[in-house]
């Protein structure tokens, strides 16, 4: 049919568009030799002038990592990782750290500009503090003063190691032990930087805290480590978002995020992830193997994860909650989009330990092109979790007929008073829906974007306002050319 051929051609031209955020900043980097060894671990620790106990911890992790098997249970396929064929440390040159924005390399600022990182006054107006991670070292942290007034600590992990070693010692590795899994173990050995947040007792953090990550130097695996502690009665909302430049080789990203909520504290952690997914054949995309876990240690504490995952060649990620305190609440809201050859195996774990603990899981998987999208979730009710409740809703949306959607829920209940609900649906964007929207004047892309945003509504509305707008646009862009 003439009209459908025309449509296909038009869509092809859209698909062929280069990755929008594919640019590389030319900047001097201070790079460790290629490969991984005890020497590299020592090198990283030495560059950061770390205390002896931290080096010992890193080395313990490294030695454990050597013997650890790769996790192979997920529904993703990729060639074996060559850990020796990557760099583990690279830092922008200014080793002493800039005192103000004027001291920051202008090229770096330009990169942030392209990324839309609201530094300086723009950030002040937007009410967002940015701990911008460029490659592996934090170079600029804004709004420290305003936060300091409230006693909030928001800095890089490296800085926290120097200035608040007691907090690091007490909490780092307490939610994700170094031996948790192969990727987290590697991170424990070679993490280079990341963010640290401490909200004191009874403090409501006066602004959304935000970090933009960006992978820049070629072949540098990124090993960030984030630690957020919300002391009793405090509240914090943390935003993490990222885009990456075009790359030819696969880049391993194995981050660890640990959240700790004490009595009556609440942490809201939102992510928009848009790393380079590779080309239409999946070449050159990021491997995103991340361990994110929150511990609701205190009574009535709450941790809510929201993620919008559109990028990466492979996503392996299960932001989880350990509901230890009585009446604690864990939430997981997720949108995972896979297009072309992308693979995502993502979900959550809700571990109910305390009484009357509640969890809620809303997962929206969208699969287009030849992509595979798996929801994998564990709800575990332990014997003492009297009155625990879980509600899980898992929806998959398929675009086209060459993609896959899989739902793998694990439910283990060891307390007869617990109530666990699981609902799942799978649907397709129908020709009828597309035609209906187009008959009202929407282009094919606008129609897909509208339908997908409707599908994801319950998740998107949990995001902070500005982030939700960004996420909506991103969903549209990620699925461009997916219908034809």
């Amino acid at each position, binding site marked *: *049919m003439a*009209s*459908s051929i*025309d*449509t296909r051609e038009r869509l092809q031209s859209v698909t062929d568009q280069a990755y929008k955020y594919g640019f590389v900043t030319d900047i001097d980097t201070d790079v460790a030799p290629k490969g991984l060894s005890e020497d590299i671990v020592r090198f990283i620790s030495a560059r950061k002038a770390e205390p002896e106990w931290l080096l010992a911890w890193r080395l313990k992790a490294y030695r454990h990592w050597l013997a650890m098997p790769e996790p192979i249970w997920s529904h993703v396929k990729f060639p074996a990782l060559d850990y020796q064929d990557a760099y583990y440390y690279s830092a922008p040159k200014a080793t002493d750290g800039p005192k103000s924005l004027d001291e920051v390399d202008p090229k770096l600022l330009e990169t942030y500009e392209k990324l839309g990182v609201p530094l300086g006054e723009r950030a002040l107006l937007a009410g967002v503090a940015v701990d911008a991670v460029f490659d592996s070292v934090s170079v600029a942290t804004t709004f420290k003063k305003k936060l300091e007034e409230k006693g909030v600590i928001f800095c890089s992990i490296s800085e926290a190691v120097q200035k608040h070693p007691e907090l690091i010692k007490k909490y780092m590795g307490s939610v994700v032990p170094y031996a948790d899994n192969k990727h987290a173990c590697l991170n424990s050995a070679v993490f280079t930087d990341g963010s640290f947040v401490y909200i004191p007792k009874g403090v409501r953090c006066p602004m959304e805290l935000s970090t933009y990550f960006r992978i820049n130097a070629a072949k540098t695996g990124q090993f960030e480590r984030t630690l957020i502690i919300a002391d009793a009665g405090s509240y914090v909302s943390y935003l993490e978002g990222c885009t990456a430049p075009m790359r030819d080789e696969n880049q391993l990203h194995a981050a660890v995020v640990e959240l700790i909520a004490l009595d009556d504290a609440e942490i809201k952690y939102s992510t928009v992830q848009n790393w380079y997914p590779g080309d239409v054949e999946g070449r050159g995309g990021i491997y995103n193997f991340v361990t994110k876990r929150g511990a609701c240690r205190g009574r009535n504490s709450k941790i809510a994860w929201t993620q919008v995952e559109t990028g990466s060649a492979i996503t392996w990620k299960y932001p989880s909650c350990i509901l230890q305190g009585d009446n604690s609440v864990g939430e997981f809201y997720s949108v995972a989009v896979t297009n072309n050859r992308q693979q995502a195996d993502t979900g959550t774990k809700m571990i109910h330990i305390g009484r009357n603990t509640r969890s809620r899981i809303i997962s929206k998987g969208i699969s287009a092109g030849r992509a595979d999208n798996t929801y994998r979730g564990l709800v575990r009710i332990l014997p003492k979790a009297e009155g625990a409740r879980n509600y899980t809703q898992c929806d998959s949306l398929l675009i086209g007929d060459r993609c896959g959607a899989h739902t793998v829920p694990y439910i283990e209940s060891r307390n007869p008073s617990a109530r666990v609900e699981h609902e799942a649906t799978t649907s397709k964007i*129908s*020709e*009828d*829906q597309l*035609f*209906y*929207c*187009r*008959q*009202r*004047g*929407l*282009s*094919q892309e*606008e*129609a897909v974007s*509208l*339908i997908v*945003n*409707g*599908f*994801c*509504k*319950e998740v998107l509305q949990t995001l902070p306002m500005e982030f939700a707008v960004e996420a909506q646009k991103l969903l549209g862009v990620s699925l461009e050319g997916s219908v034809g």
Partner: protein
Amino acid sequence: MALLEIKNLHVAVDDREILKGIDLTLDAGEVHAIMGPNGSGKSTLSYVLAGREGYAITAGTIRFQGKDLLAMAPDERARKGVFLAFQYPVEIPGVAGMTFLKTALNALRKERGAGELDAMQFLKFVRAQAKRLEIGDEMLKRALNVGFSGGEKKRNEVLQMAVLEPILAVLDETDSGLDIDALKIVADGVNALRSPERAMLLITHYQRLLDYIVPDRVHVLAHGRIAKSGGKELALELERKGYGEFLGEAA
């Protein structure tokens, strides 16, 4: 120049010819009704006008405002002012009716070189139109067509038409499934949109609708051809005699 000019239109679906040479001309300000038995090709004609895929145009032309309509993509036709009120409006989960209307209206306004309406102007405009169709705010907040009754769906189609202000409106069996009260509301809504600049094509099975929306011309579609055309009295004649006369002559 006629607003819509269909000449010798032949359309096939899966190699089966459905429309076998339609000629039809609509001038601005006119309302035409197309009547006919089931399977005569009425809905095919409406989909071909709107540009749905799956219909092969094997011969003929359609000119809209002098331009080749068949060369335009469905969304382009919509932005140029062609509107189809669907016989079976489609559900779009999670998308509020209001959001859908706003997205569609802005797409059209962009085409026309008008700026986007601000939120307050838009709300005021939609509410005024919705009130006439007895559509409340609650319904506009609900996901589009999800869980709507048949009557709600049809009223909602007419609301979209009112908001998008098309130049050519094709109403495909907008009366089907409506009780008499709902039919009156819908008909009043449609009548309010009659204007010297706008043409309408009513596709219907029953004469009943035409008691409320009085057409300028009535055409009988049978076996893929326009078998008879006349004034509004033709509809009454059909009501009396049925379609038997046209069903007899097999193609």
